[in-house]
């Protein structure tokens, strides 16, 4: 036998045993194969749930809001100057037979209440029920002349005008209108454990969303004569989602299969409104979101039976359908239209997601992960030609066929990591992605990415990491779509399709001193260049700096603070002649967030006080160049919020709480400022005012534990 083969055999034997060490070393099933005498393991010192099966906390009290503001109460329900009740419950039950129950309820005194309950017999089954109201108070400074829900009409006293300035009855016919949405989630879920290998889930979720939201609609045949009005789109949505799953888990294999059915229903299918102007059809009709459905099958699995290798796979296929009866081309009876090519769309889209990945722990220092991803959205909806009517006012000479967009993304990724002796790490990644699209300017784009990260632990108190990533996206070609009329500018590049170079860098530093001071520092920069885009977005940058400091000065006093600053900027080019660029816009948004907080234990186990302060401000500048460019004012928003609080433990089970929040908000928004209902000749808008408030909220409560 040759010399090299001999020593190869020897080497291989050693290698096998060395590798086998890593298999065994990672096996932490310490109870396996060990014979431990548990006869004296009585758990005498373990708390006995039969003595005190219940643990409950109730927090109840009262509060007061000093002023009305939808912006302040946007999601917290405190939008009105009024008193409000505080009632929170946190209770749990557990007995010696493994039966348990838990309830958490917050804000029961407000419209934005939520309740979560779960219970069952641990190890056998559980049932979860939750109810949550997410209400959004959107706009309370609007005024409109319209009345009605799906048929929005003008008052009997209304006088049409050629422009909004000519609407002589406008001022007297305006009335206040508030825009808000009320969303409610109800979920019911159960898990049943058949044995150590199998368990099953069944879940039902219903979301309803009701209210109204601002929504503009136009009547007119060209942009020159189009006249629009801002209406109140009625919302009455219901989304039901039903899911059943089976899960298998045993030793080296797990798997799950799920079936999902989701149905969306809209109680309203259209909105009709009266035309407030003297020209154009007397009414218009706009469609509202149609009912739709989704059915989905999902499969997930993991195999971990190979030494140091874990293989994961997931696959899902979904079908999206929509078949609501079409509205007519127009409600303008003066126009003669052709028949619709079909009564409904009969839309049909298949969505496929697939992912396979392999994790390999090569040794205690190096790992590698290989990933394949596939996402596909196949739109099988039939094409047809529609002789459409422009905004209920004019028939177009030619017809248009619908474009059933399909998408496909495929990615191959490889990530690796290597840990040095001193615990420092280097991580790298490569990615190759293919993007395919139909009926769009780019049929195929290829994106390649490479990244590297170095993580260094200088000591037990200081560590930092630095990551850099480069993405390059190239379209195989960029064409002007012949289906569109008028045709798009051939020099414009849509930024989600265009060639793009991206560089990202991220620095993170963590510092700990004396076990009491923690500092976290982050700096990240992302830069996108669209080098072949003569018209459209040409570049965008995002720089973000964040510092977070937590300091426990002593056992009684702690301080926390953070600062985050973002600068988001972009440059885009435009062309008034739909050719080469002759104007540009530079957007620069600067956003700052500062937080400061402190908690002080005045008397141990008896009295503590504290405060939280948040400042968030944004300034948006737009600089324009071009023959007709005149400056736009800055966009400004600023919020300061200070909360001071105190807790007094009257007894072990009773705590008195007192809190006060002061919050102020200001906004300057050229979209809305000084824009009254009659300010835009051919748009009857709401005359809304940028939000601006100063509000105080005082609340007091008693927490009782029993």
């Amino acid at each position, binding site marked *: 036998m040759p010399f090299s083969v001999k020593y190869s*055999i*020897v080497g291989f*034997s*050693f290698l096998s045993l060395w590798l086998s*060490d890593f298999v065994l070393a990672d096996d*932490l099933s310490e109870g396996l194969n060990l014979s431990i005498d*548990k006869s004296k*393991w009585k*758990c005498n010192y373990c*708390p006995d*749930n039969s003595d005190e099966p219940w643990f409950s906390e109730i927090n109840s009290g009262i509060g007061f809001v000093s002023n009305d503001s939808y912006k302040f109460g*946007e999601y917290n329900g405190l939008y009105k100057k009024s008193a409000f009740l505080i009632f929170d419950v946190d209770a749990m039950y557990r007995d010696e037979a493994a039966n348990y129950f838990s309830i958490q309820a917050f804000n029961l005194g407000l419209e*934005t209440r939520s309740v979560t309950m779960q219970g069952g017999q*641990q*190890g056998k089954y559980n049932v979860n029920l939750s109810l949550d109201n*997410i209400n959004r108070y959107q706009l309370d400074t609007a005024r409109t002349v319209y009345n009605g829900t799906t048929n929005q009409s003008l008052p009997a006293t209304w006088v049409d005008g050629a422009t909004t300035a000519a609407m002589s009855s406008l001022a007297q016919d305006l009335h206040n209108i508030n825009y808000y949405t009320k969303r409610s989630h109800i979920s019911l879920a159960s898990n049943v454990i058949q044995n150590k290998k199998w368990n099953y889930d069944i879940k039902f979720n219903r979301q309803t969303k009701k209210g109204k939201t601002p929504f*503009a609609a136009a009547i007119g045949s060209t*942009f020159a004569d*189009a006249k629009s009005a801002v209406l109140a789109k009625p919302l009455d949505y219901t989304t039901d989602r039903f899911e059943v799953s089976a899960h298998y888990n045993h030793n080296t294999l*797990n*798997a799950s299969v799920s079936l999902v059915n989701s149905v969306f229903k809209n109680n309203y299918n259209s909105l009709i409104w009266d035309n407030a102007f003297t020209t154009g059809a007397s009414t218009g009709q*706009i*469609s509202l979101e*149609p009912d739709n459905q989704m059915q989905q099958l999902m499969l997930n699995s993991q195999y971990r039976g190979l030494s140091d290798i874990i293989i994961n796979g997931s696959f*899902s296929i979904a079908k999206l359908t*929509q078949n609501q009866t079409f509205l007519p081309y127009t409600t303008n009876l003066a126009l003669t239209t052709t028949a619709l090519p079909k009564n409904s769309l009969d839309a*049909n889209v298949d969505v496929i*997601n697939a*992912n396979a*990945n392999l994790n390999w722990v090569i040794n205690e220092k190096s790992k590698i992960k290989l*990933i394949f*991803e596939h*996402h596909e*959205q196949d739109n099988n909806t039939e094409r047809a030609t529609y002789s*459409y009517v422009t*905004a209920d006012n004019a028939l177009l000479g030619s017809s248009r066929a619908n474009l059933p*967009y399909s998408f496909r993304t495929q990615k191959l990724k490889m990530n690796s990591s290597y840990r040095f002796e001193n615990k420092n790490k280097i991580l790298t990644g490569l990615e190759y992605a293919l993007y395919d*699209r139909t009926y769009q300017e780019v049929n195929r784009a290829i994106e390649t990415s490479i990244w590297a990260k170095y993580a260094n632990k200088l000591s037990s108190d200081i560590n930092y990491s630095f990551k850099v990533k480069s993405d390059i996206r190239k379209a195989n070609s960029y064409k002007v779509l012949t289906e*569109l009329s*008028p045709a*798009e*500018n051939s020099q*414009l590049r*849509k930024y*989600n399709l265009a060639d793009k170079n991206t560089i990202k860098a991220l620095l993170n530093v963590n510092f700990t001193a004396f076990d009491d001071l923690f500092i*976290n520092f982050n700096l990240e920069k992302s830069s996108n260049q669209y080098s072949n885009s003569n018209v459209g*977005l040409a570049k965008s940058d995002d720089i973000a700096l*964040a510092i977070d400091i937590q300091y426990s000065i002593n056992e009684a006093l702690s301080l926390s603070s*953070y600062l*985050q600053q*973002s600068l988001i900027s972009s440059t*885009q080019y435009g062309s008034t002649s*739909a050719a080469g660029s002759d104007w540009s*816009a530079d957007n620069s948004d600067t*956003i700052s967030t500062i937080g400061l907080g402190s908690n002080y234990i005045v008397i141990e186990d008896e009295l503590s006080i504290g405060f939280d302060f948040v400042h968030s401000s944004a300034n948006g500048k737009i600089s324009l160049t071009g023959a007709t460019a*005149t400056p736009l004012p800055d*966009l400004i928003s600023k919020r300061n919020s200070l909360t001071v609080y105190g807790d007094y433990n009257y007894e072990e089970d009773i705590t008195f709480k007192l809190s006060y929040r002061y919050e102020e908000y200001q906004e300057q928004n050229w*979209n809305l400022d000084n824009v009254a209902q009659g300010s*835009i*000749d051919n748009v009857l808008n709401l005359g809304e005012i940028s939000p601006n408030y100063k509000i105080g909220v005082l609340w007091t409560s008693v927490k009782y534990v029993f």
Partner: protein
Amino acid sequence: MEAYKNIKLLLISLLLSIALNQLANASEVKPLQYSKKGADSCLKCHDEDNDYPILPLFKTKHGERHDSRTPMAKLQCETCHGAIGDHKKTAKKGEKKSPIRAFGSKAWTPVAEQNQVCLNCHNNTARNNWFGGIHESESLSCADCHTIHARRDPMLVARTQVKKCTSCHLKQKAEFNRRSAHPVRFSKMRCSDCHNPHGTVSDKLIKTGTKNQLCYRCHAEKRGPLLWAHAPVSEDCTVCHNPHGSMHPSLLKKRPPLLCQQCHGSAGHPSALYSGAGLPSGSSTTQRKFLLGRSCLNCHSQIHGSNHPSGVKLLR
């Protein structure tokens, strides 16, 4: 004869490897002794006066002794913390007590070992993508986020979960405070409504195969499919929106008309420059409807697509 010699060589190599291996293991790792009395051995010292609260565990699922899957039903405290070994013995003067497996990023126990303890039980499909995921590659330990000995794990409650996530994700913490944001700072949404921090097949740890599938869970009215789709809407909501927060309305990255003019520049009104001349105090009354109020959406309100036969321009 030659073959016999090679086999002999192989066997000698293997035996030598085994011997060396056993010697190496023997010198590095001594098997630890389990306690005589289980949890009672631990709770005699780690009682209600312990600096770190231990006993609330017994109000939680981990502390349930009548469910054979739980730590307390198996080897009690030593299921997770490992065999007690010499930890119970009083330390010699000037020396520290013999350590026991501890949890958290500041603990002496390697993070991979800590996490394997949890994953020995919590190895269902929800955690299939932990290994090789971003949090695992950051050497995050389960105990960095989860508090096992608390009556309620803060990660399972919206208002406290967000505080924990944003202790590292500072940029997102600031974004939730912007003018337009999902209601995370109001505790009406939490990070895990959209993300699975244990790892997913998708980028950014989102829970579904694509971003749009996630958005449609709450915004199903935009799912369609529609007769006249707006292509970037069907493909990726984040082409126009920043889901964490924005200084622009409706979580938009930029506001119209400039947002729309990044992609639309055909002859006529889409390609015109709209500037201060269109303000109420400006010189051009024609520009106002493209600049003020809802800008492009003063007419093209069906921005997410339309199912109306005349909706090709997103006017109907």
